[in-house]
C-alpha cells in the first residue's frame, strides 16, 4: 500500500456482512464428511484392486485370446480408471473442502464444497446416460436382428 498507483479495490466482506454459515449447517456438514471420505476411500480401494487384478491377469498366460485379449484388457483398465478414479477424486475433494469449511465456517467454502458435490453427481449422471444409451442401442439392434432372422 506504499505505492501511490495501486489500483482501487472493493471492500469484500466489509461491514454488515458476516459471510458465515450457521452452526447447524457446520454440524450437518461435519457429520457428512466422514461418510463421504469413507466412500471415497472405498472407491479408491476398488480402483486399486481392479488395477492389481488386471495386471495379474495380464501377466498370466492364457490359451485363448493372445494379443487381442491383452489389448482388450488394457482398454478395459483405462475405462475402469475413468469410471472409478474421477468420482473417487471428486468425493475425496468434497470431503477435504468440507474440512476447510469446518475450520473457516465461511459460506464461500460451502459453495466450493458444493461445487465438488455437483461435479460428482454430474459425472454419475453422464455415465448413467452413456450406459443407458448403449443399452438402448444394443436392445434396438437385438430386436432388429431377431426380427430379421425370424421366419414369417
Amino acid at each position, binding site marked *: 500500500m506504499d505505492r501511490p498507483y495501486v489500483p482501487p*479495490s*472493493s471492500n*469484500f*466482506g*466489509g461491514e454488515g*456482512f*458476516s*459471510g*458465515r*454459515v*450457521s452452526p*447447524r*449447517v457446520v454440524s*450437518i*456438514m461435519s*457429520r*457428512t464428511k466422514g*461418510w*463421504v471420505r*469413507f*466412500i471415497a476411500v*472405498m472407491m479408491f480401494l476398488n480402483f486399486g484392486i481392479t488395477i492389481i487384478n488386471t495386471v495379474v491377469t495380464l501377466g498370466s498366460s492364457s490359451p485363448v485370446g493372445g494379443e487381442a485379449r491383452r489389448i482388450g484388457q488394457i482398454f478395459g483398465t483405462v475405462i475402469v480408471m475413468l469410471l472409478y478414479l474421477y468420482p473417487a477424486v471428486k468425493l475425496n475433494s468434497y470431503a477435504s473442502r468440507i474440512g476447510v469449511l469446518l475450520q473457516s465456517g*465461511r*459460506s*464461500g467454502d*460451502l*459453495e*466450493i464444497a*458444493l*461445487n465438488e*458435490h*455437483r461435479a460428482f*453427481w*454430474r459425472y*454419475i*449422471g453422464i455415465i*448413467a446416460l452413456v450406459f*443407458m444409451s448403449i443399452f438402448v442401442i444394443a436392445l434396438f439392434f437385438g430386436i432388429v436382428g431377431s426380427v430379421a432372422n425370424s421366419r414369417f
Partner: protein
Amino acid sequence: MRAVLAGARKVSTLTAYHLARYHPARNPKPHQDIMADNPYEAPSANLSGHETFGAQTGGVTQGVVEQLRRTKGWTRFISVLCIIAGVVMLIAAFLGGSVFGNMNGPMRQLGGFLGVIIFFYGVLGVLQLIIGAKLGGFSTAVNRLMYSAQESDLEDALDRQRSFWVFTGVMMLIFVMIAIISVITVIARLR
C-alpha cells in the same frame, strides 16, 4: 408467471456462468475468495423474492443456492433411475420366486440356492428404492430452497444429503463385511 420464471431462470444461468468463471477454486487469490459479495457482480435473479440473498444472512448466499440448483437435476435423474431399478428388481424377485416355487424335477433341488439369490435380489431392490427416495428428497428440498431462500430449507437439503451418504456408507460397510466373511469361509472350507 411462467414467462417471468423463464426469464429469471435465464438470468440465473448467466450467474452460473459467472460463478464458474470467477470461482475461488479457479482463482485462489485471498482477496477474491468471497465472490458472492462482489459489488461489481453481474445482476442475478432471486427466485425467492425475499431479501435474504441481498443481505446474505445466515450463509444462504445465491452462490450456495446456485450450486445446489445445478446439482438438483442430476440427483433427480439418478433417483428416478434408482426407483425404476428397484421396482424392476422387486418384480423380478416376486416373479422368480413364484416361478421357481412351482417348478418340479432337477430345478427343485436348486430351490434353496435360488431362494437365497431371489431373497438378495429383493433386498437389493428395496435398498435401491430407499436410495432413490433419499436422493429424490434431497432434490425436492433444493427445489424448496430455491423459492424460499430460508436457512431452514438449506439445512433440510444438506441434512437429506447427509442422510443419503450415511445410508450409502452403512450399506457399503455391510457389503464389505459380507465379502470378507465370504472370503474367510471359502478359505476355511478349502483347507
